[in-house]
């Protein structure tokens, strides 16, 4: 057991993460099969998730890069899992994903989207989850959420924010790195 190798340590992605992970956001062509912020899937209802990563002074983190990984609309993971990557807008700090509403992938667990956050000043990526406000009953029974205080659960639940300009249901999910409503980050 002690002859196990040790995981390579993480370092911050830094402010120039776009060069290698999202060149299309700095005026270069996307590379072949480069993951972007839009997931195409016909397995569920199309939704948009928008938000900002907010630092301890209340300022948006405008160099953040975020990745999501979720079950498809039928609750399937593995080869059916859905992945996307988005970067914060350089001016507003807003990130925006288009995906489909995930189905539940594990018995008793409320559907959710896994979210990773990378940025300058974040030495090892942060892992959180976004849940859906209409799943109140499932959240109350979810074994992971039952171990958290209600105020902590609230940091993980998106808010309904109407519709996009194209009539797609819009969810707002802000991630707070510090402060009274600091988002819950997981060790999974």
């Amino acid at each position, binding site marked *: 057991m002690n002859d196990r190798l040790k995981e390579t340590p993480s370092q911050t992605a830094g402010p*120039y993460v776009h060069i290698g992970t999202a060149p299309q956001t700095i005026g270069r062509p996307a590379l072949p099969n480069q993951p972007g912020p839009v997931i195409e899937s016909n397995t569920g209802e199309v939704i948009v998730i928008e938000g900002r990563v907010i630092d301890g002074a209340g300022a948006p983190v405008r160099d953040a890069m975020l990745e999501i990984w979720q079950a498809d609309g039928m609750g399937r*993971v593995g080869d059916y899992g859905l992945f996307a990557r988005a970067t914060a807008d350089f001016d507003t700090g807003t990130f925006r994903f288009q995906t489909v509403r995930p189905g539940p992938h594990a018995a008793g667990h409320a559907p959710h989207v896994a979210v990773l956050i990378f940025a300058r*000043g974040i030495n090892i990526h942060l892992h959180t989850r976004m849940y859906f406000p209409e799943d109140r009953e499932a959240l109350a029974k979810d074994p992971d959420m039952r171990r958290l205080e209600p105020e902590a659960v609230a940091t993980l639940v998106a808010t309904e924010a109407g519709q996009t300009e194209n009539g797609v249901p819009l969810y707002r999910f802000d991630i707070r790195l510090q402060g009274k409503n600091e988002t819950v980050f997981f060790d*999974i």
Partner: protein
Amino acid sequence: MTTTAFYRRDRTQQPLPLSPGYKSTVLRAPLRPLHALEQTALEQSGPALGHTPLGPLDHDLIRNAATTGDALGERIYVFGRVLDENARPVPNALVEVWQANAAGRYAHVRDGYLAPLDPNFTGCGRCVSDADGRYLFRTIKPGPYPWPNNGSDWRPAHIHLSVFGEAFAQRLITQLYFEGDPLIPLCPIVNTIPDKTVIDRLVARLDMRNQEPFDCLAYRFDIVLRGRRQTHFENRTEGL
């Protein structure tokens, strides 16, 4: 589908989130402890990004943005293996890299360092590990550069790496440094890792045997991702 759990991440082998010597962490490091959760099939699987074709020059940063000729600088291979904690190779790992040019300047709208851009270099590359976990890039050695932190701090030469293994639980972004660089121990970002032996695992080693004679030096850097817990079944000799 395999759903064996991964070993929990050993945070003693990782940088401290809040490291005031690196000032950006002060407002960006979460101040509450992480909340431990059991993995589900979601974290134990991941996007198959290493199974889709890349561009033919994606791994060659000397040529993949060339307009009038090769990128300027010290020509190097960066190569190694992607392994897991059980020392098994991780095939089909997607490795994405980005770096400054030989003068220490990033080809990025937000980098205002006075050193010149290289019209033949953007510093963006990708490759996928083979069946034995091997990966290879050809690039130029990036230059060190100053950044505002404690006055003018200097980053050691480094290449950023982003790695996707077979599962989301293995996700890793890091930076590799170069053997012998005197700026390594002075760097506030390096020193977010308190343990020098851990820092050493981010240092690529000069490997003369793998040079391209009269062309290109070689630096070796192995990457270790989280491994799955061993099961009794896996320890059995096949056929028993």
